């Protein structure tokens, strides 16, 4: 298992380097000009100096290597400085956003909490809904509960989140006026009143995403439970007189959770980056919204860094899912 992990970690390095190169070249090939908004009255030599100040004067391999150095060397050093008060990164240039002229990672750090709270909460709620539904629909296969569950989860992942979100806004924000339609990111939770306000504005985005996640996870849970319910060990457990509760919730559930946990781990990167559309619908000021706005503004360092962070998360969680699968299921051997 250890050698498998090390091999996969080593393999992840060229993968990630290649992905970063692909993203970089894609951005490089783009016809957009970061100086496109600068008025034409600015004289050409000043324009040239502005380009140089943005670091655009160099040929692309140099800029790519510089970005790699900034990402993997300067930024970690800077965080070390922040944590321990050292000054290792003295005089080194961090990755600067074209748009806001502030370090990219500072902007990301500002946006991260909103995304994590809303999307993470929705994932959690989705899992908590999905697992019991999956268990019951598998245990009572083809019952009315199972039929309805199948239908609802089919609808759940057929309805795009931008439609469910808009429908919820029309019903609950416009007609009933129960919840606010716009997520207020400036709200600070200081007392019960503001906590209540925060909870109310989170209800709709969390519901939309949770419905979507629950639909998928409950299908996995159901089919995994069905696979296990027909196994011989279940019959043995029943034959030796265990109560139905123990058989299902202890023996079958534990074994069925193995593939489901890996599916959940594989879905986690989407929690950080994914909810681009839901954030757009409810105007949550998170990472997805940041990505969209920086794509529109041609903010190359921001787009590059954000997309690359998403790629790192995907690679990392794929690895975690594989390792978890091996740890939880001793029948799986990687070596």
């Amino acid at each position, binding site marked *: 298992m250890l050698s498998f992990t090390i091999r996969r970690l080593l393999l992840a390095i060229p*993968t*990630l380097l*290649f*992905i970063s190169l*692909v*993203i970089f070249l*894609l*951005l490089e*090939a*783009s*016809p*957009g000009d970061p100086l496109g908004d600068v008025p034409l009255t600015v004289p050409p030599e000043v324009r040239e100096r502005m380009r140089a100040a943005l670091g655009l004067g160099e040929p692309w391999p140099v800029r790519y290597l510089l970005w790699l150095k900034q990402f993997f060397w300067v930024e970690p050093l800077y965080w070390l400085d922040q944590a321990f008060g050292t000054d290792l990164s003295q005089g080194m240039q961090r990755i600067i956003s074209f748009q806001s002229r502030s370090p990219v990672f500072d902007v990301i750090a500002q946006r991260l909490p909103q995304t994590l709270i809303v999307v993470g909460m929705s994932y959690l709620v989705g899992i908590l809904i999905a697992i019991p539904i999956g268990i019951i629909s598998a245990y009572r296969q083809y019952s009315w509960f199972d039929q309805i569950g199948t*239908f609802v989860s*089919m*609808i759940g*992942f*057929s*309805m*795009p989140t*931008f*439609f469910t979100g*808009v*429908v919820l*806004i*029309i019903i609950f924000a*416009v007609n009933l006026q129960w919840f606010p339609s716009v997520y207020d990111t400036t709200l600070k939770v200081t007392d019960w009143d503001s906590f209540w306000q925060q909870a109310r504005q989170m209800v709709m985005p969390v519901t939309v995403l949770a419905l979507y996640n629950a639909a998928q996870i409950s299908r996995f849970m159901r089919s995994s439970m069905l696979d296990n319910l027909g196994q011989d060990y279940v019959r043995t457990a029943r034959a030796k007189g265990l109560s139905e509760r123990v058989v299902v919730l202890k023996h079958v559930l534990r074994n069925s959770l193995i593939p489901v946990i890996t599916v959940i781990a594989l879905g986690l*990167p989407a929690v950080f*980056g*994914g909810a*681009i*559309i839901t954030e*757009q619908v409810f105007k949550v000021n998170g990472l997805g919204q940041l*990505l*969209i706005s920086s*794509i*529109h503004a041609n903010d190359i360092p921001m*787009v590059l860094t*954000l*997309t690359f962070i*998403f*790629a790192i998360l*995907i*690679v990392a969680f*794929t690895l975690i899912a594989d390792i978890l699968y091996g740890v939880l299921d001793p029948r799986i051997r990687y070596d």
Partner: protein
Amino acid sequence: MIDTTRSKDAQALQAAAGNAATPEAASPPVVPPAGAVETRSQWSDVWRQFRSHKGAMVALVIFLSIILFVSVGPLIWTVDPTYVDIRARNSGFSLAHPLGTDQLGRDLLARLMAGGQVSIAVGLTAMLIAIFLGSLIGVTSGYFRRLDAPLMRLTELFLALPLLPLLLLMVTLFREPLSQNFGTAFGIFLLIVSAIGATSWMQAARIVRGEVLGLKEREFILAAKSIGTPAHRMILRHILPNVLSPIMVAATLGIATAIITESALSFLGLGFPPDFPTWGRLLYDAVDQMVLYPWRVIFPGVLISLTVLCVNYIGDGLRDAMDPRIRGR
């Protein structure tokens, strides 16, 4: 019935000829028809099984009526979807405009039909590209052992890409040059279709590769190989027909994903231009005024969801119908 008796007669005749043991009599062998009782091809079997899946049948009927709605509908309802009638803007349901008009007075029913054509065309084309790429890579990596490792690394690489951000990136960056070269509508169509196709072939490739690896161990492949079948005929005649069912299931589900992705791009304002309606674009345009005119959001949204739901159900039914372990029960 006549066929059966005749084949029985033929068999009796053959047996008699065999008894006579004269080589001349047996020389023109009378081959009895293979399916003596009733011809049951694989596809009629699949269809029979598919029909017993109630949800999938309902979905198929609804899906076909949606396709009729968007393809035949414009021939009956001949209002131009881009005709701006500013005096009739924001009108409600009426005889002239059964589903009302939008903020520029364009007829919503006609726009829904036109938008559906684009959305479904995008879904089908993107699926075709994805399935073509997926089966190509899956079959080559499954069949040629030397190409297996590099192609699978490539697949894993693509799976590790953050797809939605990359799609957004591609569509934003290349819409200008492509729409200049191929005309706005067709350029964007090309861009969106190839972007979606190029980012969604990986699952199909993996499934097909697995199936091909299993097939390669079977005897009929060995037999075909032993008579010297060249690789291309091997793949086209023996491998591909046998991996058709997983490809078809993946294709069906691929349509659903492609339609959702296209409408998501349109919803983020990165899809087709405004005068070129798609369901996602109609929804996006209507969101600004959803407080006053909620139905303008509801109609395209329901159509997207309904189409995707039907396609998913059809894929489900197809999977059940094509699985020989379930079929015939």
